[in-house]
Structures are given as C-alpha cells and as structure tokens.
C-alpha cells in the first residue's frame, strides 16, 4: 500500500484561510485529495482584544500577496516632507526598490521601498498615522 503523503502546507494555508475568513469549517477536494479543516469549538478566551493601532489594516490585507508591511513601528509619511505631494499615487507603476513612503522612528526617516515591481493598487495607511511592526502599508502587484 502506498504511504499517504500529507500536504502540510495545504493544511496550514486552509487554517490561515479559516482564520482570515472567520469560517467554522472548510472542506477542499481536488486532484484525488480531500481535506477538511474545522475550527476549535472553544475560543481561547472570552475577553476582547485590547485595541491595537492597526485598526485600518485587517488580517486579510496583511496576508495579501501584494502587501508591503511595516518593518518597524513608527509614524508613516506618504511624502518626503510635510505638505509635499506623496511619493506615489494609486495606479502608478512602481519599480523594485522605489521609495513608497517613509516611517519615522526615533526621529530617523526610514524610506520604505517597494519589494517588487508592479502597480500601486492601494495605500492602506494615512499620512501621519502610527503603524505597528508587520502592519500592511500598501498593496503593490
């Protein structure tokens, strides 16, 4: 009998989708495989999470394949100086390494560069807003 190979990554992806979509259960069948994943019946705790700073960026956006996330905590600026126009507008073509925005941390202006070439689809943060580590800033794809 042939050994069953488990596609662990598939399960992890489905688990992430379960989390992202808020579903209770996903059943997936393709190419002779059928996988069903279900949520634990019990919430870890009944209290609500403390408010976090990333009220704008949801888990969905953070997990978007085109998401550019904050590599540090700080204050975001969309242009090179107050009052200046933003580096980029939604719809603009973006080169890999091009400056998307700035995160100020410890009075240092850190240029956040595009990790890939593409088009700026969405900007998820407002000028002057605080951002956490890992928060989705923009979608470039």
């Amino acid at each position, binding site marked *: 009998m042939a050994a069953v190979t488990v596609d662990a990554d598939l399960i992890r992806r489905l688990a992430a989708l379960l989390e992202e979509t808020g579903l209770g259960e996903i059943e997936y069948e393709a190419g002779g495989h059928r996988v069903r994943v279900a949520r634990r019946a019990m919430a870890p705790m009944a209290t609500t999470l*403390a408010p976090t*700073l990333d009220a704008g960026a949801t888990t969905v956006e953070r997990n978007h394949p085109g998401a550019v996330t904050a590599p*540090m905590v700080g204050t975001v600026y969309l242009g090179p100086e107050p009052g200046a126009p933003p580096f980029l507008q939604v719809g603009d073509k973006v080169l890999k390494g091009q400056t998307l925005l700035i995160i100020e941390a410890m009075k240092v202006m850190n240029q956040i560069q595009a990790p890939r070439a593409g088009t700026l689809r969405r900007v998820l943060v407002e000028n002057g807003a605080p951002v*956490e580590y890992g928060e989705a800033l923009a979608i470039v794809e």
Partner: protein
Amino acid sequence: MFAKVLIANRGEIALRIHRACREMGIATVAVHSTADADAMHVRLADESVCIGPPPARDSYLNMAAILSAATIANVDAIHPGLGFLAENAGFAQMVEEHGFTFIGPTPAHIAMMGDKIAAKRAMRALGVPVVPGSEGSLADEAAAGFAAEIGFPVLIKAAAGGGGKGMRRVDSPDMLDQALRIARQEAMANFANPGIYIERFLATPRHIEVQILADGQGAVVHLGERDCSIQRRYQKIIEEAPSPALDDQTRQAVARTATEAMRRIGYRGIGTLEFLYADGGFHFIEMNTRLQVEHPVSELITGIDLVREQIRVAAGEPLGYGQGDIHFSGHAMECRINAEHPLTFLPSPGRVSDYHAPGGPGIRVDSALYSGAVVPPDYDSLVAKLIAHGRTREACRMRLMRALSEYVIGGIATNLDLHRALIGEPDFVAGRYDINWLERWIASRATHP
C-alpha cells in the same frame, strides 16, 4: 502621577505591572512581538503595539522600536519590568532623553551596579561585607596568583555577569587555566565583555537578599530579607521570607546595613542586595536595580505593593512612611512554575490545553497563562508564580502544598511535580538547605530513582 505607562516586557511580569497601573488609574500600553499577539498582557492592556518579530533582540530588546512605540502611543513613562532592558543603563538614559520617565533607578546607579566589580568595590567602601575576592578584572596570570592566595576552591565570575552565566567553580590550580578560557568565552558571548574576577567559593552558603525601597528624597526602607537558596544552576526555584536560617537580630542587622548603604548612595526606586550567608557571616555578591521575580514574597509579609511604590517614587512622590511603619506578618513562599520537564528540565513550549489556577485563602497566582495560551519557544520558561502566605512557616508550607495539588496546567510540561516533591521534602520542611541542596537532591534522584 502618570496618565499612561508603556510596559516594555511580556509574560507574568508585564501582567503584574499592568495590574498595578490599572489599580492606580493609569492607562497601559503593551508592546509585543508577533509571537505574543494573543498574550495576556496584550489582551488586558488599554492599547497594544506590535514592535517586532519573535526574537527578543528584534522586539523586547529593540530599544528603537520600544521608544517609537512610546512616542506614537504618547506615554508618560516606561516600565522595563525585569530581564530584557531592565538593567540597561543606556536604555534608561535614552528613555529619559526622549522625554519619558524611566520607572527605575537613575542610569548612574544602574551602571554602578551593572559592573559587578565596581559594585563590590562600592559596597565595601560603604561598609557592606563582600565575598573575599579580586578587587577588579584580572589577567590570566594575575588570576592564578590571586586564586592561590585566597585558596581553592575559587569561583570565576563575569564582570558584567548575572544569572550564573560565565560562572565557573575551580577546585585546584591545574583546572584554572581551562576554566578561565571557558569563562572568558561565556562572558564575551553573553555580555560582550570578557572581564572576569575571582571570589572565594563558599561551600554551603544560603542565598539571602534584602529588598530595598527608596524615594531618592531621603526615605529608605527595607522590606526584610528573602531566602532564595533553592536553586538549580544559579536559577532560583523556590523563595521564602523570612529566612528560616536567621534569628531576628541577624536579619535586622543585615537589613539595616543594606538600608544604610542605599541611603548613603542616594538610591531611588526598588532594588535588591544579594548576599551569601555562610558561617554566620554575610557576603555581598551583587545588587539588582530592578523589580525581581520573587518580589511577591516580600509583598505578602509586609502588605506593601512594591510595583505601586516603584511607580509612585518614579513619579517623584515621597514614600510618606519610614521603617517603623512597615509591619511584618507571617510567612510567605513562592514556587516558580516553569514550562519545562520536571526531571530533565528541558523546555516545553506549546499550547496550554487546560488551565486552572488554585484559589482560596492565602494564595496568590501571578501568571499570564490561560486555556488556549501559547508559550512561545523564544523566551524565558517562567510561566507562573504560585505564592502562599500563612501565619507560620508550617501553615504557609501546608497551604502551598494544598494549592499545588489544585493547580492544573495541561498541554505543556511544567515543573509542578518537582515543586510537589520539594515542598514535602524533610529538609525543606525543616528549612535545612543551602544553595547546593537542590543540585544534590536532583543528583540523588538520578542515581536512586
């Protein structure tokens, strides 16, 4: 008083600080790594900020990230907790330079006590007895001569040390050379400072420490001593107060010596002077310029909330009371519950499947665990502290035993069973132990299972 405080730590100590703030009407900001997004300190805080990925150097040790979080959350003060940046004088300095209050001693006092050799020198000058040993960092040749002078066995320690790292016992001259090399390497790896010094090795001392509280405005009090001799590899496992080894005269003498030294250096905040007690004499070994894991033991016998007092004096308030206002009552013991196998001591991170803490009279639990909580593999294995208070040492011990029998932590291995065994050991019942007692006990178990 502060309106908002950032807690630059995690786990049970972050929760402890949150609780003190909440009880003082101060809003809290939790910072956390991505591994701690669902942690209790994050859930309960008024606000939270993710500051980095799981490795501590990129999150809880990341000064820039913590200061940025403090800036965007617009806090008044930063509490460093313990471990991580709590005894980093440079961080304390940066916090103050950025216009926040550092809830701790002055950077100068942190720096003074951070250098273990300088600390010993300062204490000796203040009339505090220290362990016989080298006056400063030693070159290898000097070390050999010095060791011969004070007599073997000797203990090699890291000048910038702490937590047992870079510490080596040497029994004879021919072992010295290799031990020095290893100790320097460990000291370099852990503290980026190869400086070492040598002390006489005391065979069966007790670890006794004095809790100090000072407002920097002239008021200095002590909250008595703690006996932390139940240790494994220099890690404390069980602490109690008062020490069963001291009579009242002896305990008052060492506490007064420590208090007077702190008064003379103008110390502000809370701090602990650690001593080895052997042959009826105390020997200062180091001072911790921060909150300690075992602080609840002193809180239970005095009724004083140390974290609250720490925050008050950091905000510039005077203590408002003196030594005569501190009343000692009963006995307290603390068990450190670690996420580790009770016999092999291997860490056991993972998801907590069941959690039920004991309650009832005289029992306090400080823990950030809950059913479903995840203990990440990235940090310290301490997950809970079980603290008991009773009118007598035996009443306290029986109460601790009772609470241990109620405690349920499922899904991860913990050392609860180790504690259940230790608290019932005849030597522990009699208070007859020294800092090597636990190692001997473990060794005897290994050979006679």
